[in-house]
């Protein structure tokens, strides 16, 4: 037993020294491998953390949102619809919501303006997201103007700026009072943006939605579960699709690794021949090749995953934010709360290390079965 262990260690020792001898090639292989695992793991971590954030936001979302559609576009919905919906059996509460978008021609950003009569949202005051504060360069207590359809701009005093930690929800929000809202947009009387319906028993939601749709054929009820599903599919598709793309990257890497493993240099060939002639057996050489593979793939996996964790959860995924940002001016400064479990790590391991290892089986067998008398005959 001890002898087997010692043999493994001795062979590992030699494997490390032979990798070291060709460090240029092996380091480039390692770097490429680390990079692929890093990107794959970052993506996995990023998506699962965003999923959690989306789920948290959705937790507070209304059970059912009723919009009105005219000519295929969303329109303002009359308040009376709310009272009728409230009388449907199973509906606990109907809230009308006033909100909209404000395009800031000054800096090209899109804000989300919401009317809400909370303490900070008193007339003339506003609670804003930190993204808005950044792009408008305002601090608490300062004033900032918004254009109105009339001649006078709406002057608002910043009462609250939401902390960076809630950027994923609030970076672009401007919360103002109802009165200010109607002045800002010259909002029609008796109309609201949409209705938020609370239904006590979620099982009844589809029925309530169907009743609303038949009551007002021009309305479009959106269920919370549909939003959830949309999000799920966005992230799953994103996760799955990108996974496929990255898998192809992994595949090309395997081909590279295969090519590298098969294209034995004359020098390597001679070395194996010498080893075999001085008493190494085929299975010893196979073991050597196995340890060589491990000495590449294990560090690659460990480094790749740990770096990815740091990249996504400590540095907020700067690599992906570039892709997500696109043309938007307000990119949230968020720090994701990590979501990692062992199964994720195992799957990552299965998807990256195993293909590499299997790709090297046949080449290493070919290497290992060089004739032992090759060294004599050279």
């Amino acid at each position, binding site marked *: 037993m001890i002898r087997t262990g010692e043999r493994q260690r001795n062979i590992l020792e030699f494997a490390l*020294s032979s990798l070291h001898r060709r460090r240029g090639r092996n380091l480039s292989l390692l770097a490429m491998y680390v990079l692929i695992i890093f990107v794959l793991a970052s993506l996995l971590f990023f998506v699962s953390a965003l999923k959690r954030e989306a789920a948290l936001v959705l937790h507070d979302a209304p059970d059912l949102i009723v919009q009105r559609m005219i000519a295929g576009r969303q329109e303002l919905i009359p308040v009376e619809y709310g009272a009728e919906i409230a009388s449907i059996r199973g509906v606990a509460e109907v809230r009308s919501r006033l909100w909209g978008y404000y395009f800031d021609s000054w800096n090209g950003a899109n804000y989300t303006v919401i009317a809400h009569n909370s303490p900070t949202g008193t007339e003339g005051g506003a609670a804003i997201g930190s993204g808005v504060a950044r792009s408008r360069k305002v601090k608490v207590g300062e004033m900032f103007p918004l254009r109105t359809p009339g001649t006078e701009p709406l002057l608002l005093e910043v009462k609250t700026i939401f902390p960076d930690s809630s950027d994923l929800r609030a970076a672009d929000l401007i919360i103002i009072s109802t009165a200010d809202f109607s002045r800002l947009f010259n909002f029609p009387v008796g109309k609201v943006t949409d209705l938020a319906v609370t239904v006590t028993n979620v099982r009844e939601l589809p029925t309530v939605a169907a009743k609303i749709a038949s009551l007002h054929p021009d309305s479009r009820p959106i269920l919370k579960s549909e939003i959830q599903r949309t999000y799920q599919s966005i992230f799953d598709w994103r996760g799955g699709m990108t996974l496929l793309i990255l898998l192809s990257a992994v595949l090309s890497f395997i081909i590279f690794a295969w090519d590298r493993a098969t294209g034995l240099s004359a020098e390597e060939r001679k070395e194996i021949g010498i080893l075999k002639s001085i008493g190494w057996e085929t299975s010893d050489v196979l073991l050597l090749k196995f340890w060589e593979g491990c000495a590449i793939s294990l560090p690659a996996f460990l480094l790749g995953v740990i770096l990815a964790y740091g990249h996504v959860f400590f540095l907020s995924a700067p690599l992906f934010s570039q892709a997500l940002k696109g043309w938007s001016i307000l990119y949230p400064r968020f720090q994701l709360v990590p979501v990692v479990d062992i199964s994720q790590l195992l799957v990552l391991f299965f998807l990256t290390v195993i293909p590499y290892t299997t790709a090297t089986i046949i080449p290493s067998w070919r290497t290992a079965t060089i004739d*032992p008398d090759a060294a004599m005959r050279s």
Partner: protein
Amino acid sequence: MITLSGVTKAFSCGKPNEFTAVTNVTLEIPPRQVTVFKGPSGSGKTSLLTLIGCMSRPTSGRIQLHGLGVPIPFQEDTAVPLEITGLPERFLTIIRRSIFGFVFQQCNLITGISVLENVMLPAYTSGERLSEVARRALLLLEQFGVARHARQPVELLSGGEAQRVAIARALINNPAIIIADEPTAHLDSKLSQEFMEIVSGLKRDGKSILIASHDPIVFDSGIIDRVVEMRDGTILDDRSVR
């Protein structure tokens, strides 16, 4: 003792380029002697040595090893001669590792690693502690006067030093039989003489030594017990020098 009976080795059997390297060789090699296989290149002496040294298997014929005095894991009774002809490669390797030590025409040292590591290499796979192996390797290097190079990479050695390192490597597992293939081919006369002195030392230590060579310094040397002359895969002449 090693006995060969009717040993033939053919390459590329059944193909147009078939050729027979060793034809129907029957031979007995007693222990603790220096035996030289003499003949021009292509005479089959190297092939014969690879067959004896368990590096390859004969196409037909038998090779037996007697009274090895070394325990082989699967051999129950050490008194019975060990037939090596039909053994799988795995077991040939075990025998090769524990009974034979090889010195090649080119020194066949692995470049990039130290002299010491090169000497230790054959023992890596036996599962011995490397510190123990290193101790033994240093003793051997000392014995051959190259201990001061132990930590240097092998590229920096001169031809004679490299040869002595190769001999040290062949001895690391304390084999009973040393096989040397054209050991003096790349050495000048002085170094070849030195080599023969080392061989006589080994002989004094009780090792059997088989050398393939067509160098007169080797087969005219005083320490030789027997010369086997070969040509075209067969034995022309087999004479005892003493």
